[in-house]
């Protein structure tokens, strides 16, 4: 049952050949961190040899380790280092080094770079969104050479609509998949925690607007060790 339901998100996001950019946007009422956990779980599944380069600003690594232990049966060890504060250039250097090392190893594997979350990175960069955009741009350049994927989390509601900062728009322009976590329009419900809207730009380019819809909306309910995804009205 669990796998069948988890597929709703997987289905909407689709399968891609190369690396791609996934932007997760959430708000105060509805946290989108579980989407990040979903990707983390998928990449670090015991059967896959994929590598995740995780840049954590929001929580210590032990937090993610605890979550992973809950979600995945076998225990996974994350080798992480505390992010140092000697600039985004050094951080980028670390990432590129890791990517270079892992891609030179034998066997084909996808390297996913995850950032949790971009707004806190902006805080670390003393509020300069331009710096963060430079950093993200450099991260994206790794896609061309190594075929890396990106999953970033950002909070939409801290950028007010009147003074829409380019940070969130720019990342939307560059994204292949945009996942938005929002509360229900009708307010809170006990059995639904919110709704996800998945915009898949890639499928429209590939399929030329065929029958497969690329904008999907469904509800979710976060449970102890997994997340239920269902279309509105299908939950009994």
């Amino acid at each position, binding site marked *: 049952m669990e796998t069948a339901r988890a597929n709703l998100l997987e289905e909407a996001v689709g399968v891609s050949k190369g690396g791609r950019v996934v932007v997760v946007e959430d708000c105060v009422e509805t946290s989108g961190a579980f989407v990040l956990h979903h990707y983390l779980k998928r990449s670090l599944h015991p059967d896959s040899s994929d590598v995740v380069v995780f840049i954590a600003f929001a929580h210590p690594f032990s937090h993610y380790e605890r979550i992973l232990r809950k979600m995945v049966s076998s225990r996974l060890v994350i080798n992480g280092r505390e992010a140092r504060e000697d600039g985004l*250039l050094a951080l*980028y*250097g*670390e990432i*590129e*080094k890791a990517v*270079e090392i892992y891609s030179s190893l034998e066997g084909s594997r996808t390297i996913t770079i995850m950032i949790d979350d971009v707004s806190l990175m902006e805080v670390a960069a003393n509020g300069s969104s*331009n710096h963060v*955009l*430079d950093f993200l*741009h*450099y991260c994206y*350049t790794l896609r*061309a*050479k190594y075929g890396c994927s990106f999953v970033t989390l950002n909070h*939409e509601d801290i950028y007010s*609509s009147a003074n*829409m900062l*380019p940070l969130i*728009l*720019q990342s*939307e*322009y*560059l994204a292949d998949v945009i996942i*938005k976590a*929002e509360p229900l*329009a009708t307010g809170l419900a006990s059995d639904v925690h919110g*709704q996800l*809207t998945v*915009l898949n*730009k890639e499928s*429209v*380019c*590939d399929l*030329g*607007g065929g029958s497969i*819809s*690329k*904008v*999907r*909306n469904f509800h979710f309910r976060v449970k102890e060790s997994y997340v239920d995804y269902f279309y509105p009205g299908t939950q009994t």
Partner: protein
Amino acid sequence: MAETICRALRDGAFEGEHAPALTIKDTIDTPLGSLVFNYILTQLASNILAGKSQARGVVLVALSRPPSFYAEVLKNKGFDVTSSSKWLRVLDCYSDPLGWKNKLMESGTVRNPYEEAVLKTSLCKNLKELDKVLSSIVELGKEIVEEEKGRFAVAIDSVSEVLRHSSLPSVARILSHLRSHDQVSCIFCLLHVDLHEVKVAATLEYLSTMHADVEPIIPRTNKQRSTSEDLPMVEQCFKRGKFHREELYVEGPGIKFVEVSSEDGIIAQSLVPKVQFNLELSEKERLDRAKVVLPFEHQGTGKPIQIYDGRKCLNESETEKQASVDKPQTTEDSGRGEIIYFRDSDDEMPDSDEDPDDDLDI
């Protein structure tokens, strides 16, 4: 529209005029600007290869996509990428715009950060120095044309990206430099309008001879960015957009333009559902309707038109008093009468709910 643009870019600069420049503008609601850019680039490329255009080649300034992306675009359109060096040069401002990779390579953190280029590429390692960028564009252009007289086209895939690193005046200076350069045949560039202030779009429009706007077919009424409420519309916006008098559809990896006849356009704009009877007026009908003189309107007396609705207007009575003080005797006033009516208190209210005949004994 798309064809006109491509023709104008193909024909290039006229004698004694600056080179034609095109700004493609889009917003996040219909982010199809880069597809339009690729379309115009490939159209220009096929014109160059056919020898129809004034430009002998293109200098592509890649800022938002890697050169390998453009190699893929050209390959999909059936161009021979290996022989493209005869007419195409790429100034790669994507891979290392701030020189970070270079620094990391020098410090030994990474070994070879650069991608192997398929197209003939030259790397720009400092986007902040726009003068150097300008001179490399001109140099690359001269490499293609190889002679003094030939001209080349310049394509900039995102002005927004340049504006992130430099000020608007310096970007404007570079663009007008390029436009007035003897060997530039045409320029086209892409701008994401909503990333900048309004003045940026205006400045670029002054600097260009054409601007192409990609807009949603149905403009969004609310400025809210909530997408969950109008999913079909969001989906439509990703598949098709309005391109002045044309519509563009995403088709496969490229796009297609379809001319919209004006009649369809009006209906699409007014959002009227298709019904059997006619809700719209034709131009002639509209004019005829405007000519009809309604019976209660005063015409041609020079006075403001007043419509009698049974009550006396407050303003009017005041102005009348004023007039009577100023000019006690006017011919107009002499014929005026007034009905004075005091309602009898015993009279029934005109709208009484009571049945007036309920006291009848039949």
